[in-house]
């Protein structure tokens, strides 16, 4: 029976969170709901790790839902590329589960906590589903599952402005989803199938029709919206700022990355790099937009006063790095994009966790509120410093590996100006991280503010420092990670050609 279970691993990662979410609602209490969320997250992470190992050996794992053979049935496909994204999403969910208990108890009314855990599981289900599915329409469905869950999660934030932010996100997200659906519809019209591999095969004859080109445009814009690519990023800063801290951690580290994953999947697996990058100028547009995102996002981050908002703007900038690597459409570029997807997840996860811990202590997180916290919460603040160094790209941290790989990819094609843009953006990151660190360590708490003392709860610290340690581990032993992402990129290009 256990062996049977192991054959079902690809579907289990989707089904388990989906089934567990209603259980959380039935449990109706914070503690059991949290236990369910934690247990399921870790189990799904364990399965993902096994799947990751399996794809390292076998290349890809295929699963036909309900035994219906593709292209008529829905197919789950996990290759080396999706396995890495899957590991990131489930790993972040597992760590967030440790972090969430104390953080949510402090930020939300007790009787609503179980809803957060249920919605987080649904969001996990959606993101995992997007990652493992091999069916275009199925991808849209999972995108909506994760999006709906995240609207409700953000709306549950402690401040009243959370509701408006969530509403704006809902409108933008729905438009994005609709665009994606229209794009998939166009493809369906031209090919009569929804299975990605099948579409790719049948597109060969009709690739240069206007319908397919319009389909590509709709899909790219729709997913750019979900990935918060400049100038479609405006929903993101508010959404991340006003969401509950543990929700910010999870969504910031995973959701936009999965959208980029879907974009890469569509462009390389379905349309093929030849069509998107050679016949049509997708790469040029994306390069311009990503450079604008890097510079504009970083500049905006410098002027923020709320630390969560500052990190959110920095995410807009960092998405620029990821999309830039992807837009190069070379093996090295894709490797860089994938590496930074993972590393940025680790970095932003650690930073949002540290800020969430400060919020837990101070009930606020503007730069003035956290002044002088360095002495009172040494571990939390040290975590922020290391995470910040990683974001800047300090050698010995994960961020350095990302930038190094990306710069190498740019140098190969002699894109000197783009390399310069990355360096400028990194310098801007020094400034905005520096502002926070300065406030933490060099400023005294404002007069008249109550001086709260003491570290964050142990589980929050454990989760935060696990991510910090991962940042350093990746920084010191980056070769293994880059090796994995390079293999993933190569497998993607192999499929795309």
């Amino acid at each position: 029976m256990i062996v049977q279970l192991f054959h079902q691993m690809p579907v289990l990662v989707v089904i388990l969170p989906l089934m567990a979410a209603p259980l959380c609602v039935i449990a109706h209490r914070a503690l059991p709901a949290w236990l369910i969320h934690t247990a399921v997250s870790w189990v799904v992470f364990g399965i993902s790790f096994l799947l990751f190992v399996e794809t390292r050996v076998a290349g890809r794992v295929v699963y036909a839902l309900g035994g219906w053979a593709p292209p008529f049935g829905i197919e789950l496909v996990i290759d080396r590329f999706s396995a890495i994204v899957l590991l990131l999403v489930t790993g972040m969910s597992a760590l967030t589960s440790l972090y969430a208990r104390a953080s949510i108890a402090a930020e939300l009314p007790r009787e609503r906590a179980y809803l957060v855990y249920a919605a987080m599981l649904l969001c996990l289900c959606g993101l995992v589903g997007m990652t493992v599915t091999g069916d275009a329409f199925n991808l849209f469905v999972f995108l909506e599952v994760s999006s709906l869950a995240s609207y409700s999660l953000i709306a549950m934030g402690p401040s009243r402005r959370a509701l408006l932010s969530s509403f704006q996100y809902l409108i933008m997200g729905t438009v994005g989803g609709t665009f994606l659906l229209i794009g998939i519809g166009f493809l369906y019209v031209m090919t009569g199938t929804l299975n990605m591999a099948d579409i790719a095969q049948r597109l060969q004859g009709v690739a240069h029709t206007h319908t397919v080109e319009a389909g590509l445009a709709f899909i790219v814009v729709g997913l750019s919206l979900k990935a918060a690519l400049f100038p479609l990023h405006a929903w993101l800063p508010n959404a991340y700022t006003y969401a509950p801290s543990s929700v910010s951690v999870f969504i910031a580290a995973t959701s936009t990355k999965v959208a980029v994953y879907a974009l890469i999947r569509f462009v390389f697996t379905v349309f093929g790099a030849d069509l998107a990058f050679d016949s049509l100028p997708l790469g040029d547009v994306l390069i311009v937009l990503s450079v604008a995102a890097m510079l504009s996002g970083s500049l905006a981050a410098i002027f923020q006063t709320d630390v969560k908002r500052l990190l959110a703007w920095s995410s807009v900038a960092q998405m620029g790095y990821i999309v830039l690597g992807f837009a190069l459409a070379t093996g090295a570029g894709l490797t860089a994009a994938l590496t930074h997807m993972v590393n940025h997840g680790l970095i932003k996860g650690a930073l949002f966790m540290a800020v969430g811990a400060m919020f837990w202590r101070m009930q606020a997180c503007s730069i003035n509120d956290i002044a002088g916290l360095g002495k009172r919460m040494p571990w939390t603040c040290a975590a922020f410093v290391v995470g910040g160094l990683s974001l800047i790209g300090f050698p010995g941290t994960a961020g350095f590996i990302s930038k190094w790989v990306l710069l190498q990819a740019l140098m190969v094609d002699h894109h000197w100006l783009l390399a310069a843009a990355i360096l400028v953006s990194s310098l801007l990151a020094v400034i905005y991280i520096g502002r926070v660190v300065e406030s933490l360590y060099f400023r005294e708490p404002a007069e008249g503010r109550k001086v709260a003392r003491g570290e964050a709860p142990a589980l929050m610290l454990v989760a935060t420092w696990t991510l910090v340690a991962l940042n350093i581990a990746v920084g010191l032993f980056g070769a293994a990670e880059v090796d994995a992402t390079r293999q993933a990129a190569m497998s993607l290009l192999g499929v795309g050609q």
Partner: protein
Amino acid sequence: MTDWPSDLLGHPLLSPALLMIVGGFVLAASPRQVHGVWLLAIPAAALALLWQLPLGLHGEISLFGFDLTMLRIDGLSRIWATIFLIGSFLSGLYALHVRDRIQHVASLIYAGAAIGAVLAGDLVTLFIFWEGTAISSVFLIWARRTVRAHIVGLRYLVIQVTSGLLLMVGTIIHYRATGSIAFNHLGLETAGGWLIFLAFGIKAAFPLLHNWVQDAYPEATVTGTVVLSIFTTKLAIYSLARGYAGTELLITVGAVMTIFPIFFAVIENDLRRVLAYSLNNQLGFMVVGIGIGTNLAINGAAAHAFAHILYKGLLFMSMGAVLHRVGTVKASELGGLYKSMPWTAAFCIVGSMSISAFPLFSGFVTKSMILTAAAEQHHWIAWTALLLASAGVLDHSGIKVPFFSFFHHDVGWRVKEAPLNMLLAMGAAAFLCIGIGVYPAPLYAILPFAVDYSAYSTAHVINQLQLLLFAALAFVVLFRNGWYPAEIRGLNLDSDWVYRHALPAMAARIHRALVATREHARAKLGRLGSGSYGWLKSHYGSTGALSRTWTTGVMLLWAGVLLALYLVIYY
């Protein structure tokens, strides 16, 4: 015995493991008067049988559709089975006075299962005996018959059975991937390999998977702890050596294992728990040896396991004797026992000197093999960690255990010397510890690989003596200066001082310097042009166009613009 028919040898039923297990059941049914005879005779007979078996694979049977190999006799499995049987004999001698049928039965079956696992030639057999050790050993904890021991035992059982389940699932996946259940080198290349690795890791008490050792061992009975300390963890070490020799990850894991228990061992008050921590630290040496994976390193790991079982058993025996007579092994309640229990004190010191690797004691001739192997392969970080750990071992196991129980200030216990059978068992173990240290050739002769190694080179001896002298000096200096109070908790003062005093002082100084630099920089930068800053602020400040919250309409407009842009370009 030598003229057994050769075709009978190698029959699956004629296995030392089954002999022990059956012996256990016979003991359960026999009258109390003959228990002592059985306890000593069965391990002795099994040992004789083991050495009658020729090298190679024996005892093939078919079960569940698999071809199982019950007996694999080669260098690696034979040395492990040998020391397990010697350990079983000594612990039987030690427990001779105990009038508790359950403990005797459990010890024999547990030992038999451990030997069966060591001799297993395939993963299914390994799994069966693996679970056997888990289920039989828990009775040694429950036999303490306290509520606490009952709860601890349950926790212990859950963890051990989990390890077994992981092994089973891993085996199935491994079988489907490779089509073989042979228990040879497994490696971490497959999902099954990882699961089996995790199963071994739990029993080998890898860092973060280790808590069950310190949780359960000190809660077992006087004799139970001695028995427990011999088998489970060393079985896991054997399994790692068989399946994962040369896996680099193990070097890191092992190095961490040697270092981190030291701090816990130093501040712990329960002396049996101190020994449990130091057990963990000693396992680390073996894990590093396996991770290095050269012939010398594997030899070192095997030899160290052999010596370790003897001296760690001896230390647990001596603390067990104290617990038996005094009723406590809390360091803060003991002292001056050498007057009442001189023999036990002497044997305990032999154990301490062995674990601290004094020349002429067993730890020296085995541990140095691992250190030499690490140096030969240029694993300098691991080598340094092992060296530091060696110094730490002296402080917590070498000095702390005998010093606080037998010497220090006399608390006034006046008890009888340990029972004769305990003294005999300790004496035999002490004899072997010194014997191996003085004349290691017989041990080297049964190691898995041919040995070309001499522990007693001048450099080794002098290095080790220096290390020991300075570690001992550290202890003496701290003690003489009264830097810790009479209670044991003060012992961690030396490391305390670093983070209570020195580091904060340094941090404050750096902080002051940075504040000064910052003021300086602000003054300089403030004078630089503010024109571009004003422009940036007007665009990106909280009300700037690119930074304030856009209305939903503007956001949608941009989505439309971008879509139109793409469509125009594509047409």
